[in-house]
């Protein structure tokens, strides 16, 4: 049913919007928010979204619009003196407890607290500033995330993200009143508790309280070192998001411009992780078929998402055998680069010791992944640096370049050619869809007639679980696609109590997959951004002539000349990995 209310005098229709704030924003008015996140429950913590509401009976109230349901006939005012004064006081109180060290803050420029302080002209804070001796220690103990409690405004977005997306509440509120903190158990370091480094806490944080460990300096040093050969690879989800940081419309695929920016920055070789996504599919589809024939270790879990892998290792080590032994596409690329280039490009000066691999990823967990002891060869990590989408945009900007001005270019051979199956890895369901396309071919010798498996697609909060049953010439294969670890846990419980009937379980820890990863440009205020990014990936898939991983000519060549066949000895050596029980010896291992 449609009702109407008035916003700043304008008559506005509403139907089933969950709260007044959505109605206001839909009508084109803006109200500041710090704690409101469309994909999470409303919390009403920050009080920035207060509006003045005049009810038909004459009553006037000031209420937070994020927790007030829209009511017919009410008159809503978003910018009266009263509400502006309240918002200003809220900001002043928040800033009194904030360290206000903007110039050295990772979030400077994209910080919502900073933005609103400017918008509301906060010049003078009448409250006493926190004394330096009251500052709390910063947690820099892990390779992925940095937690600075002195910048926390207690909006609880990270606490909700950790509980509602990932379901295991690593972060929680502690203490009471002015002593309230957001922290892991007893203020422990994130790497000592169950954190999987998915970075969703960072993605929803309005300030710099949780940021990603910045490694731009290290990459600059490598680029400026003439003795190093710096090789870069870029993940599927980066190409459809990084443009946002240069003012391009949401969902613009900028891969061609990105390649040329990479060359301008001085990278010696520009490769595409989509290539190894195709390679992952060859190995994983082969692995699945082997397991399916033997009927062992089913369902097969995908292993591309490091947050998910770490979740299984820390929470359900008894299910480690289900994880695909395939490395993530990122790791496969690094292994291949460091194994092959010293042989094939020795003439150009590539040696075992001078190659630096930089991976541009939408993800914070990848920073933890590359430090896995299983991903070392001869005492050296396979990947040297992970830069997030955001970091890479900063790298481009700090070189004085603008992505918009770059000409279109191609990636370097031999690891630059990719198919549509590789590119959809960036969205939830993409890995499973790509795997099914190739598994079908491996089993039947034919390609699927309809390559668009719509039931596996969808990245919004209503598509966290997607079941698909495929008929492969009479054999039924059930595929479950899950995003967020909370939903993954439900599926794991089904496996543990014996009711699971699916054969493949694809899990991406972030809602909607990598397009909404922790390292992507800030998108937490608009739930449609990740949908548009995913759409751009599916559009690219559709436009590419090759849409099956097994049709990629460079993949065929790689197998012919180097790896022999999927699952071969050489492939296992380079492309597969192992997992370990991380519950043992953890703080929860009490017996």
């Amino acid at each position, binding site marked *: 049913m449609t009702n109407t209310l008035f916003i700043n005098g304008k008559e506005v229709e509403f139907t089933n919007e969950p709260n007044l704030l959505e109605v206001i924003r839909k009508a084109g008015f803006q109200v500041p928010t710090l704690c409101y996140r469309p994909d999470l429950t409303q919390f009403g913590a920050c009080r920035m979204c207060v509006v003045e509401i005049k009810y038909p009976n004459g009553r006037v109230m000031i209420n937070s619009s994020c927790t007030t349901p829209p009511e017919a006939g009410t008159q809503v005012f978003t910018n009266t003196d009263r509400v502006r004064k309240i918002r200003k006081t809220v900001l002043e109180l928040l800033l009194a407890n904030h360290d206000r060290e903007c110039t050295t803050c990772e979030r400077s420029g994209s910080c919502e607290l900073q933005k609103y302080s400017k918008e509301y002209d906060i010049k003078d804070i009448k409250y006493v500033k926190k004394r330096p001796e009251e500052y709390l220690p910063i947690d820099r103990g892990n390779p992925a995330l940095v937690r600075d409690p002195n910048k926390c405004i207690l909006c609880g977005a990270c606490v909700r993200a950790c*509980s509602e997306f990932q379901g*295991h*509440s*690593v*972060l*929680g*509120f*502690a*203490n*009471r009143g002015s002593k309230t903190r957001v*922290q*892991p*158990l*007893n203020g422990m370091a994130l790497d000592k*508790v*169950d954190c999987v480094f998915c970075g969703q806490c960072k993605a929803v944080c309005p300030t710099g309280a949780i940021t990603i460990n910045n490694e731009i300096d290290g990459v600059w040093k490598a680029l400026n070192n003439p003795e190093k050969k710096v090789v870069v690879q870029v993940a599927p989800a980066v190409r459809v998001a990084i443009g946002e940081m240069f003012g391009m419309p949401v969902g613009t695929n900028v891969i061609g411009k990105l390649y040329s920016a990479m060359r301008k920055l001085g990278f010696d070789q520009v490769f595409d992780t989509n290539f190894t996504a195709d390679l992952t599919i060859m190995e994983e589809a082969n692995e699945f078929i082997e397991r399916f024939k033997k009927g062992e270790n089913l369902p097969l879990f995908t292993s591309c998402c490091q947050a998910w892998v770490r979740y299984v290792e820390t929470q359900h080590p008894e299910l480690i055998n289900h994880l695909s032994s395939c490395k993530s596409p990122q790791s496969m690329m690094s292994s291949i680069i460091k194994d092959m280039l010293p042989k094939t490009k020795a003439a150009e000066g590539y040696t075992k010791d001078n190659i630096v691999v930089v991976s541009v990823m939408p993800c914070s967990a990848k920073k933890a992944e590359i430090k896995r002891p299983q991903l070392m060869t001869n005492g050296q990590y396979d990947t040297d640096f992970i830069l997030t989408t955001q970091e890479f945009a900063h790298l481009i900007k700090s070189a004085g370049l603008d992505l918009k001005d770059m000409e279109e270019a191609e990636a370097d051979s031999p690891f630059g050619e990719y198919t549509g199956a590789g590119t959809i890895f960036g969205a939830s369901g993409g890995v499973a869809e790509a795997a099914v396309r190739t598994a079908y071919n491996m089993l039947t010798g034919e390609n699927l007639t309809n390559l668009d498996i719509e039931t596996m697609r969808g990245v919004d909060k209503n598509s966290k679980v997607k079941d698909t049953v495929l008929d492969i010439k009479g054999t039924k294969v059930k595929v479950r696609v899950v995003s967020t670890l909370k939903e993954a846990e439900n599926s794991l419980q089904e496996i543990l109590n014996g009711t699971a009937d699916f054969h493949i379980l694809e899990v991406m820890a972030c809602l909607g997959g990598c397009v909404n990863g922790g390292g992507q440009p800030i998108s937490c205020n608009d739930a449609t951004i990740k949908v548009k990014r995913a759409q751009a990936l599916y559009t690219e898939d559709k436009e590419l002539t090759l849409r099956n991983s097994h049709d990629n000519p460079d993949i065929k060549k790689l197998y012919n000349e180097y790896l022999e066949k999927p699952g071969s000895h050489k492939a296992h050596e380079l492309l597969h990995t192992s997992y370990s029980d991380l519950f043992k010896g953890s*703080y*929860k291992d*009490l*017996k």
Partner: protein
Amino acid sequence: MVEEKSINLTKVDEIINSYEGKKTNLIAILQKVQELYSYLPMEAMTYIGTKMEGLSPATVYGVATFYAQFSLEPKGKYVIKMCDGTACHVRGSMPVYNSVISRFNLKNGKYTTEDGMFSVETVSCLGACGLAPVVVINEQVYPKMTTDAMKVILDDIIKQERE
């Protein structure tokens, strides 16, 4: 900080089971655990958060630190609850409190004596305002307290303990 001591988790398990492991019973469970150990050991909180569905160790810690009734440190044999509600406050609870604090030399947020005999805490109201200022030591209520009366009571307890 928290004393490193091995905790028998089977007892915690029994408590959780007696409340059917429901997270709505968390406060009652924590109360029972505190009764058992005289405080909430970190291991017990971690165990509860791991074992019970819908909870995490950080959430349990959050509940335990929110309520003043829970202590994360072992409490003394005698818990001295000093009322500092409005009535007790105006009738002079603070001088009594300060005398106890200085007698036991408790400072920097410490509220349990070194020998583990006494814990001193303020509470907001004991509901006995007619007897202000009120002090409760374990289950025993002491009405209309003064610094002198407090000294006598504590002397008695210490003497009793020595015997």
